């Protein structure tokens, strides 16, 4: 299969370009926020990276809830000057999100790309990979993203603004976000990898951040996209996924129940895509990577569309070629030591 026809290869190229742009892009779009793309980007690009081209929507959202909304509720002065910045942030996010939907996760997020690269390294190091997580474990992990969004992005910043909790919890998600450490390291800065000893709260948050980063470094080698499963942006995207122009659609056939190759291909272990009889199968956990469409062997059963325009439609010939390419990629590796023993 020619590389330019392989959707996964095309996606990796786009991810690499997005990574370079989001981590080093200020070289092209300027140093200050107003030079940047939006200031409310729907992926984990970080303002603490000195060279970033744009930053994540969760940064202004936490600040506005903590520094604007909380104090305004306390003072009983709830006016346009409070609501407009929050609406501007959400509006900017929404405009971008309508254009590209959840592809911000699967095609543009720097942390998502980094985890996938680590996964590829894990394959090449012959580490025994867990291709699909246990269903029960997946079900247990799924609510975590809502907890991260509700607690770390909304409730705690608001509680900090209202004075119920300390200022340490003004932007708690940023304090533990692995993308803050990752993108600043790639920008040549060590200043985001630290333990903060100034207060117990800051110390706990910095320990969680560094532990989480270490965990992701190792788990990504053998597990597909561990952090994406608990990312609050995945939850925020899930809230608005129906308004996005990029769609994932399915024409259910009776063969779908027996097959299940789409669910096996899914890096987020969304098993419902092969049993669902719905037309719209864009699930809350989906990152719109398109692997399910690539690995569907039946003609026209699955498709990724931009509004009504098909981007990729499942096709037996593509499936055969893609499967061959996948086996060729995996076949170049020697079997892992543990597999040999078995």
């Amino acid at each position, binding site marked *: 299969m020619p590389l330019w026809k392989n959707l996964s290869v095309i996606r990796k190229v786009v991810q690499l370009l997005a990574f370079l742009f989001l981590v080093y892009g200020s070289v092209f779009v300027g140093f200050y*926020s107003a*030079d940047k793309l939006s200031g409310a980007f729907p992926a984990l690009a970080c303002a603490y990276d000195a060279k970033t081209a744009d930053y994540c929507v969760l940064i202004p959202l936490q600040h506005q809830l903590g520094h604007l909304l909380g104090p305004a509720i306390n003072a009983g002065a709830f006016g346009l000057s409070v609501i407009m910045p929050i609406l501007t942030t959400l509006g900017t996010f929404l405009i971008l999100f309508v254009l590209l939907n959840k592809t911000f996760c699967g095609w543009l997020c720097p942390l998502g790309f980094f985890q996938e690269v680590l996964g590829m390294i894990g394959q090449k190091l012959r580490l*025994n990979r867990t291709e699909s997580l246990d269903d029960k474990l997946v079900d247990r992990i799924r609510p975590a993203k809502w907890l991260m969004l509700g607690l770390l992005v909304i409730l705690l910043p608001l509680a900090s603004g209202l004075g119920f909790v300390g200022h340490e919890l003004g932007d708690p998600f940023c304090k533990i976000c692995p993308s803050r450490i990752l993108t600043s390291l790639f920008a040549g800065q060590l*200043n985001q*990898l630290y333990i903060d*000893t*100034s207060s117990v709260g800051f110390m706990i948050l910095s320990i969680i951040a560094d*532990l989480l980063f270490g965990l992701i470094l*190792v788990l990504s080698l053998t597990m597909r996209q561990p952090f994406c499963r608990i990312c609050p942006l995945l939850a925020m995207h899930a809230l608005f996924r129906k308004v996005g122009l990029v769609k994932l659609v399915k024409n259910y056939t009776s063969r779908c129940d027996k097959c299940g190759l789409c669910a096996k291909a899914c890096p987020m272990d969304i098993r419902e895509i092969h049993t669902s009889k719905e037309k719209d199968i864009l699930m809350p956990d989906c990152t719109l990577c398109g692997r399910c469409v690539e690995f569907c062997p039946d003609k026209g059963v699955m498709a990724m569309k931009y509004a009504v325009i098909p981007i990729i439609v499942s096709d037996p010939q593509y499936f055969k070629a893609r499967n061959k390419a996948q086996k060729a990629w995996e076949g170049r590796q020697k079997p892992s030591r543990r597999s040999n023993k078995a």
Partner: protein
Amino acid sequence: MKKRILMGASLAVALFNFTAHAAMLWSPAPAKHGHGGHDRHAAKSYLLHDGAGASIQLINPKLNAMPMTAEQGRVSVKAMGMDNYHALVATRSDGSHHESAVRYVYMFGKPSGESPSLLMGHEKAALELEPAPYAREHWRYLTSTDALFILRFKGDPVAFADVKMTTGNGTRLEFKSDAEGRLSIPLPEDFPAVKPGRMGNRPAEFVLSATHESNGKTFATTFSADYHINPDHWQSTPLGLAVVGGGMLLGGLITWRSRRRKEKK
């Protein structure tokens, strides 16, 4: 409250001490009645030292200038409804001697749609210290880091010129611009006491001053801003690396245990 007034007064005294022999400059004014709290739209006050007879203007991110008046050297900058950096500029001339003082003030409001690069690069006075770049959001001027500037005269870089730095903590240093007019100013570690945490440490002021002669006329300018204690004092990278290592070990343990469980099945 009393403590804040005292701190404001001591800052003014400290600035007066090191500006007595220098030119006109801006500094934050001590609070008159408490402080502005966390109201991001509250007015900010600045003092213009040695500024008798100067004309003052506030330039917004779209380069629109608004004349300001000082009352006993004090200027109150109110939110004009536009976000981002504004430039507070004082200029004075007696025909042969031209002076300017510049300070950048962040104001909250609607997005201006303009990059601060436009304002920083805009010629606000004949002789000017242009931040290249100014410490933007999520960044500040910190001790033990370099602040970068370009000294410009009528828009052109001034090579090999002397620039003096004075800080509110008593440091006095001199620097020379390079062939392209660039200056790299190492901000000194001169805070007398360091408390853990950003909130426990108030910033101090630093002032850069430069002079230049052209066609028998002299030009002088100052740039002032605040600088903060470097968080390295309470943030440890080696400890951070150790905890990342711990996280990696934990990750390895989780992987090993899940593998063992699968093999048992």
